[in-house]
């Protein structure tokens, strides 16, 4: 059972590795994220920023109460770190969406779906495998970016800023929330991929899930929502339940007959 899921996951990931186009779309954004992040963080060392007025500093503290008491440069860098890390968390949502949108449609287009469906693979096994395989590349981009950023930021930022980036909330967000959010988006794209024969439509439907997630993450960055570890864990449980529900729905909606007989 798990063996079949693993088989499809390994095969899909090998496909990703064989595709120069997909590899490029994974590697280039990762490098860009890191470079842009470090440039943005360096801006916190500029004299103009260090010399923020009292009023500006107070305004920053009102927006981000957790930063009260730290130096103005550090406060700015923490603000930048929060925005950067949100960007890193969004990467695992957008990249898998493209892969997942083609998951079923792609097999149908190259006519490999029928032989695949003629094997004893169960629908949930196929969809779970396609979802996991779509998530892994995006997660790697997010995690590698995060790790590289932490290492390189050590040369620019103060320990206070680094400890903030390594805080429990961010670790939980990257380690638990991010994969669960990605699974949510990907499951939606897989459902769309198995209900339409147009990958663009599948991608757009999958993107619907990303909007509220992006809004939540942005709200957290700008201080409208306070997401501490306990909140992040509770959110993770809720998203995990939503993931299971969505996978169940995907299995129910996956109509082998329509896919085989109506799609051309």
């Amino acid at each position, binding site marked *: 059972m798990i063996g079949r899921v693993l*088989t*499809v996951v390994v095969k899909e990931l090998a496909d990703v590795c064989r595709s120069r186009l997909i590899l490029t779309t994974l590697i280039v954004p990762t490098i860009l994220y890191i470079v842009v992040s470090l440039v943005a963080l360096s801006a916190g060392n500029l004299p103009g920023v260090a010399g923020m007025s009292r009023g500006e500093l107070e305004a920053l503290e009102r927006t981000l109460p957790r930063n009260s008491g730290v130096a103005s440069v550090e406060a700015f860098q923490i603000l930048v770190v929060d925005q950067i890390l949100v960007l890193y968390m969004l990467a695992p949502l957008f990249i898998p969406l493209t892969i997942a949108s083609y998951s079923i449609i792609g097999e149908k287009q190259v006519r490999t*779906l*029928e*032989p*695949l469906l*003629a094997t*004893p693979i169960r629908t949930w096994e196929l969809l779970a495998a396609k979802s996991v395989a779509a998530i892994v590349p995006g997660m790697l981009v997010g995690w590698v970016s995060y790790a590289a950023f932490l290492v390189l930021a050590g040369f620019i930022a103060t320990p206070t800023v680094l400890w903030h980036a390594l805080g429990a909330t961010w670790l939980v967000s990257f380690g638990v929330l991010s994969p669960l959010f990605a699974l949510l988006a990907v499951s939606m794209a897989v459902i769309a991929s198995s209900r339409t024969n147009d990958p663009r439509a599948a991608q757009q439907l999958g993107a619907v899930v990303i909007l509220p997630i992006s809004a939540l993450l942005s709200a957290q960055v700008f201080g409208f929502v306070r997401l501490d570890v306990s909140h992040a864990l509770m959110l993770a449980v809720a998203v995990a339940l939503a993931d299971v529900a969505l996978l169940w729905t995907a299995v129910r909606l996956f109509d*082998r*007959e329509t896919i085989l007989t109506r799609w051309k």
Partner: protein
Amino acid sequence: MIRAEGLGKRYGERWAVRDLDVEVKQGEIFGFLGPNGAGKTTTTRMLAGMIAPTTGRALIGGVDLAEDANAVRSRIGLLTESPGLYERMSAAANLDFHARLHGLPSQKRRERVRACLDLLGLGERRNDRVAGFSKGMKQKLAIARAVLHEPVAVFLDEPTSGLDPESARDVRAFIRDLRDAGRAIFLCTHNLDEARRLCDRVAVFRTRILRLGSPRELEREVVRHRLAVRMANQPEPFVEVVRALPAVREAEVADGELVVVLDELDRDAPPVVRALVEAGAEIQRVAGLDSALEAAYLAILNEEVEAETAQAGGVRG
């Protein structure tokens, strides 16, 4: 091994397959002949547990499709119309992927992948990407994939379509080997010559089975054979000679040859040739003019069209 009882499939108001009763035994090649759109692929998909029938039931190796389609899929091998291979993977990787999905243990998997590739002459190309394969090699690989897990029943959709004669011969030999190994083989084909050479029984099918029997039975039942005799002398004087023979239904001269219509070629041709030689004909060549099974197939389909036309006329009248 493969059994269908009253199997039917309806899409909206249209029946794609209706009242299919058929049984394919272990070690039998069953030919499923029919024109495009006759419902052959729908039938195959139903029997392979990929789409649900509207009526009736099917059993593969004793397992009812309605009860456990997954178990059925593990007992069958399917060659689809298009090979459907992963082009960027090697031949061995394609087979290994499917072997894993069928749950073959690792040692057995390696053995079967190697054996199947060798049997179909692809052993030396096992590590090459499928994208570089010819159409014939892809088709052979797809056949290897269908039998990799040693299924009890094998469904083959146009297995020699588009192959060169040598590859087609290899594939036919492989299909015979499968039969000899005790598999039940369900062969969808347009190639009537192939059906005649390979199949133990054939069904002429259009939405339902129109006729079922061995190729010989269908030929005997439905068609008369045409024998063309080329001779050095003028053929016209020999028309009456052959018409006098009891086995001859018709005789005429066409394109400088004497064309004789017989009930059965193998049985009736020798006395015709003997009579012609005794009458002084200098025979240069004797040949059957067409595939008898093809003629039978066309005759059966024509009968069906005529029956439908008559029925429609009756309803209107």
